[in-house]
Structure formats: C-alpha cells, structure tokens
C-alpha cells in the first residue's frame, strides 16, 4: 500500500487492484469519484467485476468487487456507463455522472 496516500485504501503504486478489493469509504480531495456496492437479494456480491465505459462502450477501467461488493473509480468528470459482470452470466448496467470534486454513489442490484 502507498504510504504517501494514507487517506485512501487504494494503492497508488501500480495499475492493479488494491488488497482485498476496494474498500468504499471517504473519497479523496478534488477528484471525480464513482463508487458504490453491488448486491443480490440484499447480500453483497464479492465475486464479480465493475467496468467503467465511455461513449460507444469504450473501456475506461475495471475493478474486482471487494468483499463488501464495493467498487471505486477515479474518473474524469463526465458521463459514463457502469457495467457489472458476475458469475452465472449476471450483469447490470447503468449510466453514471462523475463531477470534479464529487463522489457519485451508485448502488447496483443484480
């Protein structure tokens, strides 16, 4: 984990997933953050992937869901599509808006 960024649970040292998946908590500073949880019948979905897509389904980023079904993206401000993939062909998709300095919360139910 990055010691330089103690406020965040997301490592800044690589492009990979943070240990244990993302932990959704207070977001940092002036960035455009999109975060939330994925649930199925009220229970967290901990095996699955959240993908952030741009216009025309252009891939932007993907994270594995955390133990609590959580995900978080540091996006550029703008309109995005959030897509969730889970085992057994489960999927969901919804539009999200990311704004500078804001945390956009998205709750996804499969």
């Amino acid at each position, binding site marked *: 984990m990055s010691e*330089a960024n103690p406020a965040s649970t*997301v490592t800044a040292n*690589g492009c990979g997933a943070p240990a244990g998946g*993302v932990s959704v908590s207070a977001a940092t500073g002036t960035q455009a953050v999109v975060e939330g949880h994925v649930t199925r019948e009220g229970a967290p979905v901990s095996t699955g992937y959240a993908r952030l897509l741009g216009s025309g389904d252009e891939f932007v*980023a993907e994270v594995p869901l955390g133990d609590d079904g959580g995900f978080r993206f*540091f996006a550029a401000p703008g309109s995005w599509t959030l897509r969730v993939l889970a085992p*057994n062909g489960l999927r969901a998709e919804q539009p999200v808006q990311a704004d500078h300095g804001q945390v956009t919360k998205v709750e996804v139910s499969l």
Partner: protein
Amino acid sequence: MSRSDVLVDADWAEAHIGDPDVVIVEVDEDTSAYDKGHIPNAIKIDWKKDLQDPVRRDFVDKTGFENLLSERGISNDDTVLLYGGNNNWFAAYAYWYFRLYGHDKVLLLDGGRKKWELDSRELTRDVPERPRTSYTAREQDASLRALRDEVIAAIGKRNLVDVRSPDEFTGRLLAPAHLPQEQAQRAGHIPTARNVPWSKAANEDGTFRSDDELRSLYAGEAGLDFGRDTIAYCRIGERSAHTWFVLHELLGQPNVKNYDGSWTEYGSLVGVPIELGEAR
C-alpha cells in the same frame, strides 16, 4: 510461434491441474486475491515484491530470478502456466519477464482469473508444496526490452504504441480511472505514438480477440506499419506487456519491445518532447 503455442483456455488448464510437468502460477499485484482462492495447485508470484528490485527501479537481476524460481519449486524443464487478475496484465508482464530471462516453456491462460471466476470454476485456498529446485536463468534478452534512450531515438522512426486509456494518452488523466491521480510529473504521450488501449485487444471476459480482429485493430484501425519495429508502453509497463504479448506472441511480429519504464519514467524526464491531445 502461433496462438496455440502460447495461449491455453480454461479447459486445458483444468485438465493439467495435476500434471507434474506444468506449474500453474497466479501473478497479481493484489496477492490477497490468491489467498482468498486460486486455481487448484497454483502457486503465487507477487508482481511487486517478487519481481521488482526492492531498492532501485528495475527488475530483480538474473540471480534474483534464479533464487525466486528455485524457491518456488520451478525447474528449467517445467511448463509454466501464468494467469492473474486485471485481465492478465500482471500475468502477461510475468510472461514477458520469463521470456526475458530465457524460460521458453511458458503459457498464458486466456481470460485469466476473471474468466475462471465468471465461469464459476473451482478455486481453493490450499497452498501446494513444491520442493526447492536449482533454476538457471539466461542473461536478459535485450531484444524484448526498450530503455528510455532507445525510446527517444525511436520517435518518428518506429511504431510507438501507447496502450493507456484515451484520457491518459491525451493528458486528461495521469493514471487509470480506478487509481488516484498521481505519478508522472507531466501528462501526455510520446510524440508520434498511436493510442491503442490494451482493452481493445481483449473481450469483456478477459480473453484475447481473434488473430484477425487483432491484426485489423493494429494494422488497420491504428495504422501501425507492421514492416517497422515496435515499442509498446503504458504507465508502468504491465498493460504494455499485454500488448507486447499480442503483437509478438499472438501475431508473430518479430521486433516488438516493451518499454517498462513507460509513462512514469518518460513523463518525468527533463527536456524530452511530449505531445498533448489526440495523435497527430
């Protein structure tokens, strides 16, 4: 070299879980993924702790690689099957690394951990024990790795493929959108680079697109001249290892190098040219 020599599917992996000649290795930055469950019989390699020098920004050296593989119980004759999270970014990086140190019997699992999980295939927490070996590596194969001066000299002369997202390429972001925005001192891309995000080479489940689709992506859409040598880069060299795998291993392009210094190095160099915005 063709696709079947370097890439196997999950059925193949499942059939070789008990094969004494095959060592399955999960490679992640987040090794807690392995600890929570991995392909039966798989061992783990930590992208950062095991493969990077702990002090300098560089790989572990030849001796370090030999020690690592010996300690993990991998011998020179073993076939190493690599897979990992993040659509195989770090597994592809490890693949490139194994090839760099001369291990030729190495395979990548198509779709990596994601496809395995989405298929609901078996994962276990049991950690296999492998007796220590005495592994001997070859000297680094310089034909696979680009260093900064070579990259600067390649501007306008070779194909430079920037595999980061369009927002990173144009300079709107400094890091992928699932990470805090820090790292290089300047945003943008190396002049004359084409932007072909790594993700265009992969399907949604993490498997690679077909050879025909890949050929038309790079040679058609992106306008890469396959008659020229190529250098791929990203931010820290692991997404570009994924593209190196596509160009060098799947499509058989002869002279493709991965620039593992990538944007975190180039974007902090003093005095080098940088372009902002779309490719020119």
